């Protein structure tokens, strides 16, 4: 019997757990370690952030689901990985520290035969002084509690505008190397929608502030779609929506610090600027959660297992190369770590080989370029591929049997631009592949038959449907495995 330990119970980690439980739980043990008691459908946090959904709408209790299906759930955070065991024995293990209130702070060794690191991102608010809701001056929609607070502050600003006072709202990214522009994009349009519904939109100046070279980059170098008899870059559509909704935009920006009511930022031309605000939601940059690695002698091997940003190395090609020498083949396929055949990393936790967008730097040496996105669909796809590989490896395969390269898969994103069953809209976007492959698609890097985008009420219905579908699936209700990931 093997023990499979999965660290993280987000979209990726929980997907691995669901499938492995279905396939191998009768013969093998599955342990899930997560510091959070609840699963969160993160894409709907933007609706919590504007008061259109509640915490209960976007979360459910993990222990209930795992107890029902016989998965050993430990509410704890991962601290270190010991892939060679230690002086006491060769069996690999992880150390965890409980966040469960009854055992908070207690540490424990958990041995494993297979390990999946699906720990997701550390929200690195500390990278920008003054950023973030806890000790800073901006709000966030990255977690449910952050989104609840964002809505509270937004409602206060709306009340102020109802009294006739104008306000400035700034939404975007809070550092030159952020990813997740899509979440900020959704939030800015939902804020615009909510202000219009509240009858106060004319009192608001709304500004988009991001590290993209051009609007529509989204960390994947932008995209092209066929529309209206032309092949057009997404920049045109992204700018169009900004103009339509009376939103100003500032791109090529690295936020250097945030003070109460003032954002300081540097732009790619090396100049420095200030922007006053009354309400601001800025996405933080991501880093790894801070796992350490130790070999059997106790020597620190963190730098071998993890990239400098704390994300775990996998079967990608990390050789430093200039941008024009990057290839789709640099991207990982099986998500297995080099050196340890029984360790995998999926979702945001794996280290990409490099950016997707072109690297850019100001004359002051400041990198101002989006990091690559790892959205829900690719995260679930790689999680399922790893689950299939582990299933086959516990049954005798000597290496991973399934792959899910971001350069060979597509992604569908539905970005809400306002929630209402009859008046809502969303941008539905697909790209294939996620990482452009200029060898296969020389002109645009992507298959234009599978890369498209449109705005409409149908997109909002789609986003709502996905919300209920994926929560149903994550709760492992009857028939869940028939639903697509």
């Amino acid at each position, binding site marked *: 019997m093997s023990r499979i330990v999965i660290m993280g119970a987000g979209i990726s980690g929980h997907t691995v757990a669901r499938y492995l439980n279905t396939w191998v739980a009768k013969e093998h043990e599955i342990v899930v370690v997560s510091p959070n008691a609840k699963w969160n459908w993160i894409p709907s946090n933007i609706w919590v952030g504007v008061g259109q959904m509640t915490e209960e709408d976007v979360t459910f209790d993990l222990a209930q689901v795992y107890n029902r299906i016989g998965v050993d759930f430990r509410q704890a955070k991962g601290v270190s990985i010991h892939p060679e065991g230690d002086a006491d024995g060769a069996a690999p293990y992880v150390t965890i520290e409980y966040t469960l209130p009854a055992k908070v702070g207690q540490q424990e060794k958990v041995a494993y035969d297979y390990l999946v690191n699906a720990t997701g991102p550390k929200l690195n608010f500390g990278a920008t002084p003054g950023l973030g809701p806890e000790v800073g001056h901006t709000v966030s929609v990255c977690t449910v509690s952050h989104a609840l607070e964002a809505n509270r502050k937004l409602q206060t600003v709306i009340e102020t505008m109802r009294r006739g006072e*104008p*306000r*400035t709202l700034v939404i975007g990214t809070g550092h030159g190397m952020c990813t997740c522009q899509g979440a900020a994009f959704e939030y800015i349009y939902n804020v615009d929608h909510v202000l219009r519904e509240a009858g106060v939109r004319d009192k*608001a*100046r709304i500004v988009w502030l991001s590290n993209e070279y051009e609007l529509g980059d989204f960390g994947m170098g932008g995209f092209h779609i066929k529309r209206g008899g032309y092949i057009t870059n997404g920049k*045109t559509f992204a*700018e*169009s929506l*900004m*103009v*339509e909704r*009376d939103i*100003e*935009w500032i791109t090529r920006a690295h936020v250097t610090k945030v003070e109460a009511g003032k954002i300081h930022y540097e732009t790619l031309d090396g100049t420095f600027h200030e922007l006053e605000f009354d309400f601001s939601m800025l996405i933080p940059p991501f880093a790894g959660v801070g796992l350490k690695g130790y070999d059997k002698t106790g020597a620190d091997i963190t730098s071998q297992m993890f990239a400098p940003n704390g994300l775990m190395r996998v079967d990608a090609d990390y050789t430093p190369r200039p941008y024009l020498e990057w290839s789709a083949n640099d991207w990982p396929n099986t998500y297995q770590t080099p050196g340890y055949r029984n360790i995998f990393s999926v979702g945001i936790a794996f280290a990409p080989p490099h950016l997707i967008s072109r690297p850019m730097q100001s004359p002051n040496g400041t990198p101002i370029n989006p990091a690559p996105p790892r959205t829900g669909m690719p995260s679930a*796809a790689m999680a399922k*591929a790893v689950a299939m590989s582990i299933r086959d490896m516990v049954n005798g395969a000597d290496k991973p049997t*399934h*792959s*899910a*390269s971001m350069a*060979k*898969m*597509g992604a*569908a994103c539905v970005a809400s631009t306002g929630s209402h069953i*009859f*008046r809502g*809209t969303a941008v*539905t976007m*697909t790209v*294939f592949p996620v990482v452009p492959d200029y060898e296969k698609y020389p002109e645009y890097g992507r*298959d234009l038959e*599978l890369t*498209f985008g*449109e*705005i*409409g*009420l*149908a*997109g909002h*219905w*789609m986003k709502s449907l996905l919300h209920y579908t994926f929560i149903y699936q994550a709760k492992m209700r009857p028939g869940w495995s028939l639903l*697509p990931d």
Partner: protein
Amino acid sequence: MPVRVTNKEPYQQAYYPPKPTGLTCYMRTSFIWQCFRFVAINVKMIKLMARSHH
């Protein structure tokens, strides 16, 4: 006092990008048309997922 772009001045940011016409905006929330688009979007997504499996 916040500055709002109230007219599209030449060479200003908002002057260049396309803006949808009234018909385009209407079609985005036209219930009947969007029902067709909902089916079309689902077909496109199914094609995408089919190409993505390995």
